[in-house]
């Protein structure tokens, strides 16, 4: 459980760094709106990744299973 939380934080930090650095033209002068905009995008990214993982979790599980079926760890050869 803690590991999951940690990766959420590290993910958040990494993404924050990616978006903070390439800063461009539009001026957001003393406007709380832009901060809200950015955080929404970040949260959407995190939620999007979690949803994507959930959707493809079965596919990922099946892939791993089939991989181990092909190469069973204790096969007598």
């Amino acid at each position, binding site marked *: 459980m803690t590991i999951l939380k940690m990766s959420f934080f590290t993910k958040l930090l990494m993404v924050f760094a990616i978006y903070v650095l390439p800063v461009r033209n*539009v001026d957001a002068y003393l406007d*709380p709106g*832009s901060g809200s*905009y950015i955080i929404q995008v970040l949260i959407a*990214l*995190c*939620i999007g990744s979690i949803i994507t993982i959930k959707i493809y979790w079965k596919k990922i599980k099946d892939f791993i299973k089939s991989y181990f079926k092909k190469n069973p760890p204790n096969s007598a050869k």
Partner: protein
Amino acid sequence: MNGSLYRQINAVYKENYDHLMTSGLYGRLVEENLLIPHVEGDKDLSEQTEIYKIIHPEFILFISYPYEWCFSQLKNAALTTLKIQKIALDYGMTLKDASAYNIQFIDNKPVLIDTLSFEKYQEGKPWIAYRQFCQHFLAPLALMSLTDVRLSQLLRVYIDGIPLDLASKLMPKNSWLKVSLLSHIHLHAKSQKHFADRPVNIKKQKISKLSLLGIINSLEKAIKKLNWSPKGTEWADYYEDTNYSRDALEHKKALLNEYLEIIKPKTVWDLGANTGLFSRLASSKGIQTISFDVDPAAVEKNYIECAWRKETHLLPLIIDLTNPSSSLGWANEERISLIERGPADMIFALALIHHLAISNNLPFNNIASYFSKLCKYLVIEFVPKEDSKVQKLLLTREDIFQNYTKQVFEKAFERFFSIESNDRLKDSERVLYLMRTLL
């Protein structure tokens, strides 16, 4: 115009309005009692080309504000806003605003009253109302639930919702461990501060519809998890602790019913209503009734009872009579004071006068004067000094209330009212009066 409300739809909004009406979203929301219905006006009211249409929304009997709502009322208003946003997305639209002032209680259910708050949804764009939702709904609810229920009064000071950095500071430290509150409040606040005076590229970032729904669901889960239990305040268990005998209570109810039958008021305001015991005598007769009380726990209990009884004619609200909501906003005109939302046909001021006159040192004249501006008929209960409740108040005060007598009371009120009837309650020294405002 003519005492009715009209809204002007400008030409720039034409596309959005048409989509709202023709996509089926309007029909769906009105059917589910989530949006206020309206009627379209005749176009010949204007020759200007900037105006597309005039609409005439349904009349709302009483306007209430978020700082007057109890915890569950604000919570339901929040969940209703999110529900509407989700439905809107199904029809290709999104809410531009998520202001708590866009919700009103009609038949005691939260309803969106800003018909023009919808715009066409463009995939990729974030929810523009996100910040407003967090400030108007999530932050106050989190503060009420986790810190103190009275913090909803901050909404009186901050009319665009509680600033997130302030909310973040006031919330307990363990709220940082809750993922939803961490993201939508704490980190949101930090992000606002960080980007406040920095250049930011708005156009680059995109949010898919799936992620947007994810955010809405995340907000919904966060709100649903916030709870508050109405107990522990001084008024929460009032009715278990009164000094009425059964006979006195029944007599009081009978008199109130009688007055309601004679006068047949269309609206009743019950001041100091507590959990609405007597308010229900009016609302059960189909009279639009509002229960006002200063205690958030009492109002919450009242509202919860309204919910399980499925009541439509009773609206409980939080008001401090000694400091009622004043006019707020730009030029003090955006939100109106209590007195401007009246007068009511009839007011109940039951078991109240001693709190105003003794606890709050208000002279009878001032009380009578204010009440006369609030109603056409007044039902007021005089609680004499010998009453055990008044004695309780005098325990911690010097008795400077020589003028607190029935005679002085009647004389003061007769300056503003004509006393139509008075009855002494059985088994009690308390007297119930029916008075009519002198014009």
